[in-house]
């Protein structure tokens, strides 16, 4: 656990002691932080095939995003009217900054390669630390990708307002890059400071997962709004946006076009002031972030009554025969509700999964739309993928299973059963809701088949995949942090598993597409049998592999310190 002990040494007069002659100390230079970061990235990749793959994936994504940002800025410079260019630049810039603020919290996790807590015991002035961490934060795929995208803004400013414009554009872009990095760092370390107690932290994880899951639906809503908005109202928005740090740096070159250089300077000053203010605020929160989390939860009331087994096993399962399988199912159920990582994943999957059929079926009923059973297979897929890193969630706690020498098949089946107990009822309710909303009762019975067929197939395949592609989660205080370099690997594994599993479930989907009328009812038993068979086969194969590879799996999910 990354609990750092003790406060940072307070700057001030040195404590009296047997100090003879203090050696001359060289000031800590910023480039040390940058070199440390680079070294940590390089070491993280050493001898780890999957990580290298993930890194390549991240770089590819970075290049793609950098390129698209670059193009958007460039388009802003080429549009016939300067107003149009200004609107494009302002919105692209604002989107960039919002992305920096939200994406780390919601999706990618906070890169803890340089965790402020690790510097807690070094006598570094707060300013040095803040500036050093900032420089290190710029070095990395997101920072470099953003810098590349911003080159487009500079070029566009140059084409609009000549060399002076390029200069203002350069200043605006550089300040905006700094703003992106500082804002994102400040936000995450403010979170770290806020999330002192484990309870608050767990709760926030759930809230953030809710926000994250709502991004899709909101985007849906926003894009339809954007389609019906006139250019004039967009221009009005930009006039306001241009005076906020979000876009001021990108609107500044257009002041030169309009012959008002003082306004440009004022806008740049706004961005610079925001950077400084955030930097100051961040360096304040850094200190509390360095102290680490204290988990002094109030003692839960009273000693537990009744037997310990009834305490573990949920009431609904108490009739079942006590044994390894029951224990595993009960513990998995507890963990899906208690482990903030799992809970966040579950909530995202449920909301994100539900949004797909609701969006497709309710909003879009034109010709050629997907049938009800087809669309409901998608949330089943999203839900079942949750077990893709089931061993990574447990981390080194998995050693308990290894020491007890439990059968691999039992373990995998219990894990699949627990997730099914949670998700299948939800999926069925979702099916009924969508069927009622679309007045499509005839699709309901085959939908049961596609849901269970898809869910079971994905569970079966991911059961095997989760043994080979397990990756560690840091045993950190931050539920959103990921080990550096695993973000990409995570995406690769999830993507490959999803595609493979969807392909394996194809027979059921095809059946549901071709059978109609009374015959469509057959899809339900066939799909259920298909899904069940897939789980049994997957866990049968996976179980043997798990028993053989148990120790290797434990190494794979052990976070590297």
């Amino acid at each position: 656990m990354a609990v750092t002990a003790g406060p940072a040494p307070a700057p001030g007069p040195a404590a009296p002691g047997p100090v003879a002659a203090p050696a001359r100390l060289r000031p800590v230079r910023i480039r040390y932080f940058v070199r440390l970061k680079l070294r940590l990235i390089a070491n993280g990749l050493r001898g780890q095939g999957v990580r290298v793959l993930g890194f390549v994936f991240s770089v590819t994504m970075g290049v793609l995003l950098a390129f698209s940002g670059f193009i958007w800025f460039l388009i802003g410079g080429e549009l016939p009217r300067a107003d149009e260019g200004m609107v494009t630049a302002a919105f692209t810039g604002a989107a960039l900054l919002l992305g920096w603020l939200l994406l780390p919290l919601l999706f990618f996790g906070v890169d803890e390669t340089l965790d402020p807590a690790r510097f807690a015991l070094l006598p570094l002035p707060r300013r040095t630390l803040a500036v050093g961490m900032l420089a290190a934060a710029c070095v990395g795929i997101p920072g470099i990708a953003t810098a590349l995208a911003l080159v487009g803004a500079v070029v566009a400013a140059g084409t609009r307002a000549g060399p002076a414009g390029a200069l203002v554009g350069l200043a605006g872009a550089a300040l905006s890059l700094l703003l992106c990095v500082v804002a994102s760092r400040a936000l995450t370390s403010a979170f770290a400071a806020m999330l002192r107690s484990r309870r608050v932290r767990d709760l926030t994880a759930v809230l953030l997962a809710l926000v994250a899951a709502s991004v899709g639906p909101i985007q849906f809503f926003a894009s339809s709004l954007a389609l019906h908005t006139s250019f004039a109202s967009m221009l009005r928005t930009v006039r306001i946006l241009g005076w906020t740090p979000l876009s001021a740096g990108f609107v500044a070159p257009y002041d030169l076009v309009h012959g008002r250089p003082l306004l440009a300077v004022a806008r740049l000053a706004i961005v610079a002031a925001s950077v400084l203010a955030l930097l100051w605020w961040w360096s304040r929160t850094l200190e509390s972030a360095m102290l680490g989390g204290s988990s002094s939860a109030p003692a839960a009331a009273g000693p537990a009554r009744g037997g310990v087994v009834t305490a573990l096993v949920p009431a609904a399962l108490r009739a079942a025969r006590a044994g390894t399988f029951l224990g595993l199912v009960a513990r998995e159920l507890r963990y899906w509700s208690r482990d903030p990582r799992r809970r966040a994943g579950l909530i995202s999957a449920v909301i994100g999964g539900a949004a797909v059929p609701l969006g497709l079926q309710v909003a879009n009923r034109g010709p050629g739309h997907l049938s009800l059973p087809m669309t409901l297979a998608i949330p089943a897929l999203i839900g079942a993928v949750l077990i893709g890193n089931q061993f990574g969630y447990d981390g080194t706690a998995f050693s308990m299973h290894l020491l007890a020498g439990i059968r691999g098949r039992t373990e995998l089946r219990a894990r699949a059963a627990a997730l099914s107990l949670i998700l299948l009822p939800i999926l069925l309710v979702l099916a009924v809701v969508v069927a009622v909303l679309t007045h499509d009762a005839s699709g309901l019975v085959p939908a049961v088949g596609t849901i269970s067929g898809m869910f079971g197939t994905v569970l079966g395949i991911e059961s095997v995949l989760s043994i080979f592609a397990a990756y560690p989660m840091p045993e950190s205080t931050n539920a959103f942090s990921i080990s550096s370099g695993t973000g990409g690997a995570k995406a690769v594994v999830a993507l490959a598993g999803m595609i493979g599993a969807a392909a394996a479930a194809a027979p059921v989907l095809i059946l549901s597409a071709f059978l109609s009328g009374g015959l469509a009812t057959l899809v339900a038993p066939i799909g259920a049998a298909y899904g069940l068979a897939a789980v049994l086969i997957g866990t049968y194969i996976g179980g043997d592999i798990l028993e053989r590879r148990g120790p290797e799996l434990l190494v794979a999910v052990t976070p590297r310190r």
Partner: protein
Amino acid sequence: MTLTPRLTLTPRRWCAGALPSTVVIDGGPALALRGLVKNFDGVLAVNGVDLDVPAGSFFGLLGPNGAGKTTSLSMAVGLLRPTQGRAYVLGHDVWADPIRAKRLLGVLPDGVRMFDRLSGPELLAYQGLLRGMPADVIDQRARELLDVFGLADAGRTLVVDYSAGMKKKIGLACALLHAPRVLVLDEPFEAVDPVSGATIRDILGRYVAGGGTVIFSSHVLELVERLCTHVAILAEGRIKAVGTLDEVRGSRNLEDVFVETVGGRVATGEELSWL
């Protein structure tokens, strides 16, 4: 089974009928390591460890930091696959016949998490169910263990919110729950307060007196000297000295023997003169 007011942790009592009778090999070592080697990407962490832990002994494994104690013990209990070598628990090969061997073993690993989002009682119940124990036996033993370790008051507090010492104690309780014949404990006294330490010493002492075998690693030489019947000193991935406590220390005290064996150095007074 009759309820006794005090916990008497004799494996004999708890194991009666619970274990196949064929497994006890009289006279053989409780734990035997043969030529264990672990090579981490070219770094030899453990370089040929041979060790016999006699049945019924209280065995202390000593060694400086990085000597390979945790690595050796992990290989001995089936958590880490050895590059070479074998480990036997009461005659059962840990890597060829893991189910038998693991049934006889109770382990407190160091530096691994537990399922710490369960409460203490839940964790014990989970351990019992994983080991295939009947529910009433789990209930009774778990209650005794929670009482004797002073964890009953923690109630429904999750293990993640326990203090470091409490975590050690619940880990030890988990290792004891199925009444193993051999206990392998990695740093069981670390972060434990003196009162709890005394409790643990007391329990382990009674366990050994009842016929169990304990092997534990530690840095604390005084503790080892007080508790152990046998010691081994591990350094640089090899066993440097092994035997009964008296054989190893001879007429001197254990600390001198340890420092000499490990090849440590004693400050001469010349260095760190700027302090």
